[in-house]
C-alpha cells in the first residue's frame, strides 16, 4: 500500500488486521462537519478549526443538500494513513434520500393519526412503543456513540421504573419529580457500571453487561422494598389528567400519550444536543481511538462515565414512563433476553444515529405485526410450527441481527442516509497474541 510511507500519527492495533483501504485513519483532530449520525470524530483534514457550515442549498426537488466542505481546505489537506496522497478522502456530504422524507412523513402521520383511530388499549400499547424509543436510544448512546457494547440495558429500564414507582408511591413525590428521579437513579447506576468500563473494553465489556442482565432478576428479588420482590410492585398513584382535558378513559390515554411523546421528543432533542457538543465529540473520539482522544485532552474517565450515565438515564426514563402507562413493575418483565432484544433493536435501526433508534423500534413493530399474521396458520404440519416461530420476537431479532450484519452493517438507517466517504462506527478488535 502506498500509504505506508506516510507517517501514521496514531497507528492502531487494528491497522494491521483490516486490509481494506483505511481512509479514515486519524489525522488531525477536527470535529466532523455533521456529527449527527456519528461519523469518525477524527476527520482527515488539514484544518484544525471547525469551518462554519455555509447555509444549506435547496435543490429543485426540495431536497436539502449540504454543500461539500469549502475547497479552500482541500488545498492544505494532508492525508495520513493508508489512503495515501493520491486517494483524497471525499468530503463528507449529506444526501437525504427521498426515503427519509417518506419515512418522516409516515412517522408524522402515524403520531397524529394513531391516537385518533385507536381504542384505549391500543393507544396504551402504542404509547409504550413510543416510550421504547428512549430505551433503544440509551443502548445506541453507549454502543453506537460511546463504543461500549452494552447488552444489559434492560436492567436500567427496570431500575428506572422501580425508582420512579418508589418515588411516587413510597415517597409521595409528584409524578414529574418521580419520573426524573427514575431517570436519575438509573443514570447513577449507569455511572457506577461505567466505572469498570474504564478498564474493561470491547468484547469483555459486552460480556460483563450480559452478565449484569443475567444476574439482574435474582438480584432484584433480593430488594423487595424497592422492586416488589418476586411478584413485583403495583403502582398505586395514577397520573390523572386535569379536569378540562376530560375524564374518560380515552382522554386519560391521550393525556398519557401526549406527555410521553413530549418527554420522548425533549429527551431526543437533549440527546441530540449532547451528541453535538463537547461531551458528545469526546464520546465519539473515545470510540474511535481512546489514546488519540486522551492526547487531545479528552478526560477519558469523565467521558466514559458520562456516556454510560447518559445512556442509562435514557433507559431509566423509558422505565419511569412505562409505569405511567402500566401501573405495575416487576423483574419478571426484564429477563436477560429483553436486554438483548433492546440491543438488537438498536443495531437493526442503526448504531450512531438518533433516527436509527426510532427506525429500529418501528421495524420491531412491523415485524411483530407480520409475525402475528403467521401465528395462527394451521394445518401445515411442521411448517406451521416454523411459521409460528416468526411470531417469536426473539427468534426474528436473532435472525435479523445475523442477516443485517452481512447485508446492512450500518443498520437499516443506512438505507436512508448515505454519505460518501463515511464508515460505520469502528470497533477495534483486540487480539491476544501468545
Amino acid at each position, binding site marked *: 500500500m502506498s500509504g505506508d510511507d506516510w507517517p501514521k500519527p*496514531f*497507528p*492502531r*492495533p*487494528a491497522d494491521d*488486521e*483490516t*486490509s*481494506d483501504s483505511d481512509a479514515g485513519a486519524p489525522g488531525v483532530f477536527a470535529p466532523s462537519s455533521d456529527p449527527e449520525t456519528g461519523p469518525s470524530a477524527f476527520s482527515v483534514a488539514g484544518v484544525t478549526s471547525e469551518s462554519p457550515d455555509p447555509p444549506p442549498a435547496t435543490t429543485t426537488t426540495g431536497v436539502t443538500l449540504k454543500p461539500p466542505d469549502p475547497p479552500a481546505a482541500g488545498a492544505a489537506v494532508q492525508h495520513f494513513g493508508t489512503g495515501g496522497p493520491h486517494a483524497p478522502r471525499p468530503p463528507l456530504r449529506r444526501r437525504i434520500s427521498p426515503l427519509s422524507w417518506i419515512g418522516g412523513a409516515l412517522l408524522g402521520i402515524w403520531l397524529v393519526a394513531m391516537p385518533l383511530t385507536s381504542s384505549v388499549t391500543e393507544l396504551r400499547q402504542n404509547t409504550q412503543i413510543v416510550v421504547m424509543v428512549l430505551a433503544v436510544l440509551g443502548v445506541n448512546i453507549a454502543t453506537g456513540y460511546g463504543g461500549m*457494547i452494552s*447488552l444489559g440495558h434492560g436492567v436500567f429500564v427496570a431500575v428506572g421504573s422501580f425508582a420512579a414507582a418508589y418515588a411516587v408511591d413510597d415517597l409521595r413525590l409528584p409524578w414529574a419529580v418521580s419520573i426524573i428521579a427514575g431517570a436519575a437513579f438509573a443514570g447513577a447506576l449507569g455511572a457506577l457500571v461505567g466505572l*469498570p468500563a474504564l*478498564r*474493561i473494553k*470491547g*468484547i*469483555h465489556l*459486552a*460480556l*460483563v453487561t*450480559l*452478565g*449484569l442482565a*443475567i*444476574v439482574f432478576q*435474582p*438480584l432484584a428479588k*433480593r430488594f423487595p422494598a424497592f422492586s416488589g420482590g418476586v411478584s413485583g410492585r403495583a403502582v398505586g398513584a395514577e397520573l390523572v389528567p386535569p379536569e378540562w382535558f376530560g375524564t374518560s378513559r380515552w382522554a386519560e390515554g391521550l393525556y398519557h400519550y401526549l406527555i410521553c411523546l413530549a418527554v420522548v421528543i425533549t429527551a431526543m432533542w437533549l440527546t441530540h444536543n449532547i451528541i453535538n457538543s463537547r461531551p458528545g465529540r469526546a464520546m465519539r473520539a473515545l470510540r474511535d481511538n481512546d*489514546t488519540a482522544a486522551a492526547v487531545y485532552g479528552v478526560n477519558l474517565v469523565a467521558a466514559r462515565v458520562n456516556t454510560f450515565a447518559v445512556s442509562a438515564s435514557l433507559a431509566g426514563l423509558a422505565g419511569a414512563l412505562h409505569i405511567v402507562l402500566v401501573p405495575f413493575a416487576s423483574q419478571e418483565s426484564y429477563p436477560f*433476553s429483553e436486554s*438483548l*432484544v433492546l*440491543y*438488537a433493536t438498536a*443495531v437493526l435501526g442503526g*448504531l450512531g444515529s438518533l433516527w436509527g433508534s426510532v427506525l429500529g423500534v418501528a421495524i420491531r413493530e412491523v415485524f411483530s405485526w407480520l409475525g402475528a399474521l403467521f401465528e395462527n396458520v394451521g394445518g401445515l404440519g411442521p411448517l406451521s*410450527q416454523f411459521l*409460528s*416461530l416468526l411470531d*417469536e420476537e*426473539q*427468534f426474528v*431479532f*436473532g*435472525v435479523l*441481527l*445475523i442477516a*443485517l*450484519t*452481512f447485508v446492512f*452493517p450500518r443498520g437499516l438507517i443506512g438505507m436512508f442516509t448515505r454519505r460518501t466517504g463515511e464508515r*460505520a*462506527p469502528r*470497533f*477495534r478488535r*483486540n*487480539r*491476544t*497474541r*501468545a
Partner: protein
Amino acid sequence: MMDEVLLLQRIFDALFNSAIYSSLALALVIIFRSTGLLNFAQGEMATFSAYIAFVLLAGAAPGVTGGGLAGWFGAPFSTPLAIAGAVIIGIAAGATTERVLIRPLRNAPELALVNVTIGILLALNSLMAQWWGTGPRVFPPFFPSAPGDHLGIAGARLRFSTIGAWLVLFALLTLLALLLRYTRAGLAFRAVSIDPESAALNGIRVGPTLMYGWALAAGLGAIAATMSANSVLLEPTMMVRVLVYAFAAATLGGLDSPKGALVGGVIIGLSQTLIPAYVPFIGFELSVLPALLAMVIVLIVRPAGLFGTERIERV
C-alpha cells in the same frame, strides 16, 4: 452432620459443577485463543445438542418423550449412542456456524461478531422454546445416579456422577492434548492461534483450521450439556447461567489458557456452592453474582487472569 463433613460434602457436590464449567470454559478458550472472539452462543449451542440427544433418546426412559421432533430419527437409541449422535451433530453444527457465519466476517469489526453470536443466542433460544417447550424436560442420567451410587469418604458422599464427569473431562483433555500435539491439524491450529498471518504465510489454511477449532469447542459444549442435562434439568435457558459461570471461569483462569479454564472452572464451581452456603444473602438463586463479580474484578485488576498471556496493546 458435623461441620467438617458438611464442608467436605459441599465440596464434593461442587466438583460436579466444576467439571461442567471447566469443559464449557475450555470450549470458550479454544475459540477465544484462535479468533479473539467470545462465543456468547456457546451455551445455547450446547443446549441445542442436549435437545438433539433428548430427541434421539425418545422413549428410552419413562418421561423422555423427545418433544416436538420425536420419531424423526428412528428413536429410541441407547444412551451412549444418542449422546454420541448429539455430539456429532453438535460438532457439525459448530463447524457449519464457523464456515457460514463467522468466516465471512474475519476482517469485520468486533461488533459484527458480537452481533452474530448474540443473534445465534437469541434465535436458538427461541427455536428451542418453540420446538420443545419452555418447561424442564426429563433427561436420563449420563452416569449411574441411584441413591446408593456413591463412594463414602470420611462420612461424605462422592457421587458416581461427579467421578464420571471428571473422568470424562480428563479423557477429553487427554484427547485434546493428543490432537493438538500429534496431528497436523493440531499443529496448524496451534500455529494459527499464535499468529494467523505467519501461519498463512507458511501455507496453513487458516479458515479450515479455525473451523476445526469451532468443531472442537462445539463438541466439548455438547458433552458438557448432555452430562449436566440430568442434574440441571433440560430447558432452553439451562445454559444461560452456566455460561456466566463458564465465562467467569475462563476469565479467572485467563481467556487464552486451557489450564486456566480447568483451574478457573474448579474455583468457580467451588465458590458457587460454598458462597451461598455460608453467605445467606446470596442464596442459591443469586449464586451468579459472585461469579460475575469475580469476572469484573479479574478483568479490572488482572485482565490476563491467572494463567493467561498478558495482553500487550500497541497504541
